[in-house]
């Protein structure tokens, strides 16, 4: 259900530069007629991302005050929708919400996470379960009682086309001539599977250089694990690590890679949407990805996407290697 000219309250635990920031930021940009009130309880310093948007308000509320806060907001403000992610207990507490629709959102492709939340979630208290892809809709429908399957609706995530477009600057990135950048975006966790990217890089000729863009990383050990992998596969000198880049910077990096015959590479083992793939394609940077989760649905987006059977590192490297230098 599309909401326009309305107030929308969104609640999520982390105010961070993670994937949900991308989801929220793009909604704010794409729905200028809506007023977005974003409420978090863990402050990881990302509220400034929203500073520039007059149609947005960000609040950090103590976790124990979330329920009365949201109830009061619903009574006073008449939100068209209250959207909650990763907080099933809060959803259950919101009995007095006036005419506001209560939407529970899933964005994780991890079934363990989905089951854990669904075990707590009182489905009878919500008006809709919203997911960003057909793939995730099918997964969630398989996990809820059939009587509640009707609640599950797909609303595709939005890409900020004002930032991720083919037109625009390629920034001041400075690589030696002949270098072909391969961009990988994610975290150093097992699901995003950066190790396969490093392995694929090791199979490629030296003109290919990896640029790993991470966010929400604060573990020195995980970064050290990545660096150890890079050293073990002999590609330390062909890997650049970026962290918490602003969307405009990421977009300029994509365009820079596009102009140097690079690729966006996804070695993720599960995707509920595939934001990185969608955004890189929007800038004209071709993407190549393991075919998992909702990635296949990105084939219908504007741009170039090649799918590789998940785990086939050689095939991934061969496809990249075979692509011509423009």
């Amino acid at each position, binding site marked *: 259900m599309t909401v326009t000219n309305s107030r929308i309250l969104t609640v999520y635990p982390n105010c961070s*530069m993670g994937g949900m920031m991308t989801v929220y930021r793009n909604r704010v940009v794409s729905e200028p007629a809506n007023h977005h*009130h974003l*409420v978090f309880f863990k402050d*990881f*310093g990302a509220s*400034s991302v929203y*500073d*520039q948007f007059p149609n947005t*308000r960000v*609040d*950090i*509320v*103590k976790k124990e*005050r979330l*329920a*009365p*806060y949201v*109830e*009061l*907001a619903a*009574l*006073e*403000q008449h939100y068209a929708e209250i959207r909650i992610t990763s907080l099933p207990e809060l959803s259950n507490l919101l009995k*007095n919400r006036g005419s506001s629709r209560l939407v529970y959102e899933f964005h994780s492709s991890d079934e363990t996470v989905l089951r854990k939340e669904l075990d707590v979630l009182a489905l009878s208290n919500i008006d809709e379960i919203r997911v960003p892809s057909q793939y995730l809709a099918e997964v969630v429908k398989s996990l809820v009682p059939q009587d509640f399957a009707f609640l599950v609706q797909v609303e595709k995530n939005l890409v900020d086309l004002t930032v991720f477009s083919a037109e625009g600057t390629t*920034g*001041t*990135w*400075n*690589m030696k001539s002949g270098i072909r950048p391969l961009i990988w975006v994610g975290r150093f966790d097992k699901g995003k599977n950066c190790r396969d990217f490093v392995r694929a890089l090791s199979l490629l000729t030296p003109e290919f250089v990896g640029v790993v863009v*991470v966010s929400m*990383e*604060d*573990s*020195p*050990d995980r*970064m*050290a694990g990545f*660096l*150890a992998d890079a*050293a073990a596969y002999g590609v*330390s000198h062909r890997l*650049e*690590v*970026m*962290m*918490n*880049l*602003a969307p*405009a*910077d990421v977009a*300029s990096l994509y365009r820079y890679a596009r102009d140097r015959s690079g690729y966006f590479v996804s070695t993720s083992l599960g995707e509920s949407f595939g934001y990185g793939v969608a955004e890189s394609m929007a800038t004209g940077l071709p993407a190549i990805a393991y075919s998992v989760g909702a990635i296949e649905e990105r084939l219908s987006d504007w741009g170039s996407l090649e799918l590789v059977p998940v785990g086939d590192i050689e095939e991934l490297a061969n496809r990249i290697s075979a692509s011509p230098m423009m």
Partner: protein
Amino acid sequence: MLTWSLDTREEAAILRQNSSAFQVTSATPSHFYTLANRTVGNFLVPPDASVIEFVPGQKIILRGQVEASPGIETAWALIGYSAEGEPTVALETNGSMSVELETTADTQFVSAALRVKGKGDVNAREIEIQAIDAYPIGEISRVISLEDCSAVEISMLAYDSNPLQPASALLTFSFRDESGAIVHPIGSSAINGKLGAYTYVNLGNIHSPAETKITVDVPPSSQFLHISGVPWKHGRQVVVLGSPHVRKIEKNRSELQTTEDGIREFIDSIPEDGHLIVFYTTAPPLGHETLALRPNRLAKEYEKLGKWIVFFPFSKVTPGTESHSEKSHQISRENMGIFLEAVAARTGMRNVFICSSFPDIQAVAAFDYLKLHNWQLIYEVRDDMEEFNRVGYSKWFNPLLEQRIASRADKIITVSPRLASKMNVISGRKDSIVVANGVASELVSDAAPLRVSKLYAERDASTIVGYIGHLTPSWFDWTLIISAAIERPNWTFEIIGHGMPDNLVLPKNITFLGPKPHSEFVEIAARWKVGIIPFKASALTYAVDPNKIYEYLALGLRVVTAAMGSVALCPVTHVYEHRSEFVQELSDAMQAEMGTHDQEAIEEFLKQVTWDERAYTMLSIFDDTNKKRR
């Protein structure tokens, strides 16, 4: 202004008085009145004027401390008179220190008095009569304009009029925007799902009303605040005195400007050919002279030399202190992404990023990002962070991250030969440079009067050995000092600092002076003959280049120190490699005289080791890298 008189002149007298106090002596067992601003003791007769100006309907409160001889009874009284002269009396017996009178639309005058009964003396003081609005809590309804306010402080007095049935009440806060629409409160306030932001009202009793004071954060875009009183449990009996006092707390510059805007504005203010130096460091924020470490000192010197400074301290930057000066800006580490985006258009080696002993994951990423923008990257190594990590500090450290930083830096600059050697091994290179620590030129000049022949001669006779610094047994060798003190009872050891273990038994000739401010340290050290640095041998201490050796020398002290840093290059310094050599080296130092040659050596050395000299050296290294890369 109150003038006091008695309704009897024969058996009582006022001994002394002023407007807010009086002393009365009584020789009669009967009662009489001490009257305020009237002389007629018959209260059926209205006064010529009211004891206080008031608006009919206000509450009159008289408060006054009374001390009386044993057996004397006192009671404050207020008498209200209608236009027809009809009196209404409020009298508080039982030694109460206050009395209240409710006025009505008909009340025209008010009189005040103290009733006294019995023989002896009465002292009344701190007498105060007020006419105030007093009304039920539910009548509070006030709207405040909030332009450019970050918070509002509200205070008020209230009491529970029926202590036998304890009541409670709330103040609620409702924010509105320019159009009058409700703005939701910030989550820092207590919130009720129906009433919104609120606080409980503190309640005293009628004689001692309690103050409620609360600071309410103002949400962005709100223009008005509506404060309401809400009776809660038996709340109708809650009485508020006077109008709530409201103080607006104005937004500071950082609140009027977003973090992003502040960073962008500063970066945009730097000319394209300006020399920008960025510190990413474990040091504290700029502006705390006593806490300043090498990065703080050098940032100050670079700025004096016309450079632009961005400083990422270890701790969060307090809002309002981001703009340290026109040419230096502090940024919290969490805003590194905003900073990188803001400097993305700046390329070239005149932009220098110094990772100063802080090779964490963010530094690794910033290095790579800025390398791709052709910046100059410096790894400055002030301590052996791996050793700190080993003893439980610096949790952010990982040797692979340091290896990455060391191998990617354009230059590695360390404070000691030991660190330079280690960095060469880690990075697989051989060009790590040592630029030792230094001393503030202010200390060198301030302590110059101590470094003259006459005072050197006086201190040659001194038997005092001194130390200033951290006293943790992790590196301060207490056992060594205690055994030396026992072996040489004629020497006195004066120890300044903090972190000393609790269980030490010190011989009489070790005096622990506790922590001292720098000015006092200079005064105390003027009596010392030798300054010591008795650190335990460890990878951590070998790596250190102790700042205190430069301070000791600035104060004209001979030094005895464990081998570490660049101490071997310092004049009048006795270095011991092994603990067994300490007493002998100290003995040599205590016997040595500070001859002309030594004095000249100190002066020559001090000229080369001030922070401004160190800054020149560092800048020449940056320039050299710049030229080579070009």
